[in-house]
Structures are given as C-alpha cells and as structure tokens.
C-alpha cells in the first residue's frame, strides 16, 4: 500500500511554551492516503503539534516539508505567508474540534462550503452552488438547509459542514483535532463512519488528533503516542494498542480498557 515517496516530512520539530509543555524533537513521515493518529493524555502537546503541522503555529525549531501536487518539496515555514495561506485553502484542510473555529457562523451553509472555491477564484455562482449541494449530499446533510446558518445546525451537522467546507477544493491532506469530541456516542459513530468512507474514496492523507483510542483504532493506520511533548511510541495502530511497548502507552491503553 505505502510504497511511494512521503507526502509530509517532519524533522526535529519543536515548539515549547515551557519545559515539556508543547512539542519537542518530533520526527515522522506521512505517506499519501495514510491516516496517522496522534494520541496522548490531555496537555501532552497534541494540538500544539497539529497546529505547527497545519501552518498555524510557527515552530521554534525543526522543519516541515510537504510534497505538493506538482511534486515539489515545500518547506512550510520557509514559504511566504501568502503561499502558506494558499496551500492551506487548496491542498490542505483543517477540521477543528469546535465548529465555531472552523466555520463562519454568520453566513449560510452554502456560503461556508463555497468560500474556498471563491477564495481560489471561482466566479460562477451557479457552479459554486451546485458544488455546495453536491457536498451537502456527500456528507449526508439535508440539501434543503443549504441557505440556513450553521448556528441552526446540531453539533454533528456542524462537523459534517466543516468537513464539506474543507473537502470542496479536493485537498490531499487534512488535519483534524478531536473532530468527534463533544458529540453524542451515536452521532459520533455515524460521523466516524462517514469520515472513514470519505478518506478511502478520496484517497486522503489525514493527521487526526484524539484522546479517544477507539476513534484512533477505527480511523488511523498508524499511531504516534505523545507524552510531555515527546513521541514516546509509534507504529501500526493494532500493534501499538494491542502490544504496547512503553510503560506509558501500556497505562494509556489499560485506562481505556478499564473504565
């Protein structure tokens, strides 16, 4: 399955707010179409790492290299902010835990989905709307609600809308921070199911942060386990969860198994 060149290379990435607060000396590679889970307890540095990876937080050391559609390697933080923002809204996507961080709550669902298209120069209203409707269908939202604002949507619907808003420009790499956090269990299950289908069909590479190991098992092929800002263990998901090598991972896994 994974035989090509990596899509993302992370080398010695560091962003510390204080000793062990943040992330430090992070190395890993991500391959096209691969789903990588980042797990670890609260405060272990997962979001800090994800924000650095997704171009939102300037690291203090290390680099992140991304191979773009034209097969060029880009050093993320050597790009101008102009180029970085462009990458963020074309080849990348970001699904936030809180919909209000990822959606424009004051404009309709259709406008939310269309924004990235308009930002990259799409100027045909009818096309933008048609693609909005298509994506509403693809994420199983009621197309009759395309002109409603996200404030009238439930939590699960808002997450679907965030996903549609990101996928409309066909990104190759999507970052997700606890995308199912705070949702009811049944809503969560349906959303995970949808995410799994989309990832497979669109051949998306995903970096997903979660502290829910069940979510990690369902979506991620590979896991990195973080503690105090460091990666303490990494490997195939089943290996890490079923046969953890590090004492910390063993604790983490067992705390899930014994509620």
């Amino acid at each position, binding site marked *: 399955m994974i035989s090509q060149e990596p899509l993302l290379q992370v080398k010695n990435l560091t962003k510390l707010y204080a000793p062990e607060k943040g992330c430090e000396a992070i190395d890993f590679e991500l391959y096209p179409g691969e789903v990588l889970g980042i797990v670890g307890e609260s405060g272990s540095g997962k979001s800090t790492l994800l924000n650095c990876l997704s171009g939102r937080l300037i690291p203090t050391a290390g680099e992140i290299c991304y191979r773009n559609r034209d097969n060029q390697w880009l050093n993320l933080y050597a790009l101008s*902010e*102009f180029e970085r*923002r462009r990458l963020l*809204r074309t080849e990348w996507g970001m699904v936030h835990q809180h919909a209000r961080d990822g959606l*424009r709550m*004051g*404009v*309709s669902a*259709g*406008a939310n989905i*269309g*924004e*990235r298209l*308009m*930002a*990259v120069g799409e*100027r*045909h*209203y*009818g096309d*933008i*709307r048609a693609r909005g409707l298509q994506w509403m269908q693809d994420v199983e939202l009621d197309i009759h609600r*395309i*002109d409603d604002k996200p404030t009238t949507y439930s939590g699960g619907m808002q997450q679907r809308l965030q996903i549609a808003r990101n996928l409309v420009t066909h990104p190759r790499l999507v970052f997700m921070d606890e995308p199912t956090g705070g949702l009811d269990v049944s809503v969560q299950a349906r959303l995970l199911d949808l995410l799994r289908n989309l990832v497979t069909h669109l051949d998306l590479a995903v970096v997903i942060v979660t502290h829910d190991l069940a979510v990690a098992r369902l979506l991620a092929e590979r896991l990195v386990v973080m503690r105090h800002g460091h990666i303490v263990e990494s490997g195939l998901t089943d290996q890490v969860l079923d046969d953890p090598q590090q004492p910390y991972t063993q604790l983490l896994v067992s705390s899930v198994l014994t509620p």
Partner: protein
Amino acid sequence: MNAATIRDGYNFAYLDEQTKRMIRRALLKAIAIPGYQVPFGGREMPMPYGWGTGGIQLTAAVIGQDDVLKVIDQGADDTTNAVSIRTFFKDLTGVKTTEKTREATLIQTRHRIPEVPLQADQILIYQVPIPEPLRFIEPSEVETRKMHALEDYGVMHVKLYEDIARYGSIATTYAYPVRVNGRYIMDPSPIPKFDNPKMDRIPALQLFGAGREKRIYAVPPYTEVLSLDFLDHPFEIQRWDETCAICGSDHSFLDEVIMDDQGTRSYICSDTDYCSQRVQQEAVA
C-alpha cells in the same frame, strides 16, 4: 495670499502648514498604491465627524488660491452640509466656489459622483464614513490589514453569494465593493452602485478621506476600478422606469420626492447642477 478674504487669525484653509504637508505625504503614498488605505494623523476639525471631516481635511490640504471649489451632498449643492462646508472654505481660503461641475477644479462630495464626466484637471474628494470593506466580516484591524496584504479576499464574494442565495440577485446597492488596479479591494464610500462605473479609468484624480478612522486612499487617473460580481450574476447599475420630472432625463440617478400636499410622488435628478444645466440648455434651444 489674499489675506483680506480670509477670516482673521486663521491659516489658509484652517489647517496649519505642517499638518497639510503631513496629509499631502499620506496622499502621495495613497496615489502610489491605488486603493490602499494609508493611515494619517487626522486632525480635529471645527465640525462633527458626521459632516465628513476626512474629506474636509483632504480638501484643506490640497486646495490652492486658484482652485474653484464645488461641494455636494447626495448630489445637491444646497443641503445644509454642502452649504456649511462651502462657506467654511470660502471664509478660510477666499477661493471661488461654484455649483457647476464643469467649472470646478476641486469637488468635495458625499454619496454621489456628478453625472457630467470628470476631466483631467479635476480632483474628486470623497467623504468616507467606514473605509474598510472587509469590516463586515472581520472586526479586527490587524486581521483586515493582513487580508489586504495577502490578497485574501474570498470573503468578499461570500457576501455577494449570500445576497444571491437570499434575494436572487446581488442586493448591495450602496458602497458596492470594487477592486482597484487588479489589486486592492476598496470601499467606494456610500455612493450608489449607479456611480461605480464612473470611477473606472477616468481622467480625474479621486481622493478618499475617513476622518474618524484616520485613513486616506486614492484612485489615480486612468486606473481600473471594477465592481465585484459573478459571471452568471454580472454587476448592474440601478435603472428607473421614470424620467426626471424637471429636466426629463432618462439616464441620471433619480431621487423619489413628494411633490405636493396630496403626496404625489415624482422622480428628479439627484445631481441638482446636472438637472438645472439641462433645463437651461432646453430654454436656450
């Protein structure tokens, strides 16, 4: 300087020379970067902000003794606002004033562009209440400046999209956003969109002053000014089925007015000078 015509104890055009130089420097920068908002150390003027102190400061900074000044408000030379500003400059500069668009070298305006095409030796100075076209979606000044710098303008079309989704067409009729010289998105001030095409590649210089927010921007002569739109919902100006009740014009911007005690409604040119010129020509012919 013709001191006799200036009110005692005041500098020519009210502002001191150093302030004028500061404003002119900001103006030069604004002209060099069409549509870009230049911050300037705006001064208090002896009138409330609502009267357009931004425009008044620009006029004060560029006016010379040989200028001929016209002041309009909503197209009219005879509103309280227009009369007061004209009197102010007459008192403090002694320059000639006019109501005729063709005679003026400086035209200070609020809410309209004259119907008569402007010429190369004319400067149009707009009074601007809110200079930032991105403000509706982004309250932070730091972020809007960044959006301009990075040409991050997707949200402008989001606004137009919302109009069409809700009303079936672009409902924005005033302060309709434009793109200047293919680069900066600019708020043309609350002129009707009817006037937007008059900004595009004209020989006159256009200056914009926002007093409260202390911003200056400009459109140099012959600069492209395009109204934002969609391919399948192209920009359109307002049109009327009626003609002007006074001069019969079928192509100028019309205001609806009540003509008599019975409440009879009628339409007349908002540009009062344009309307009376047409009536005069009619009489001569």
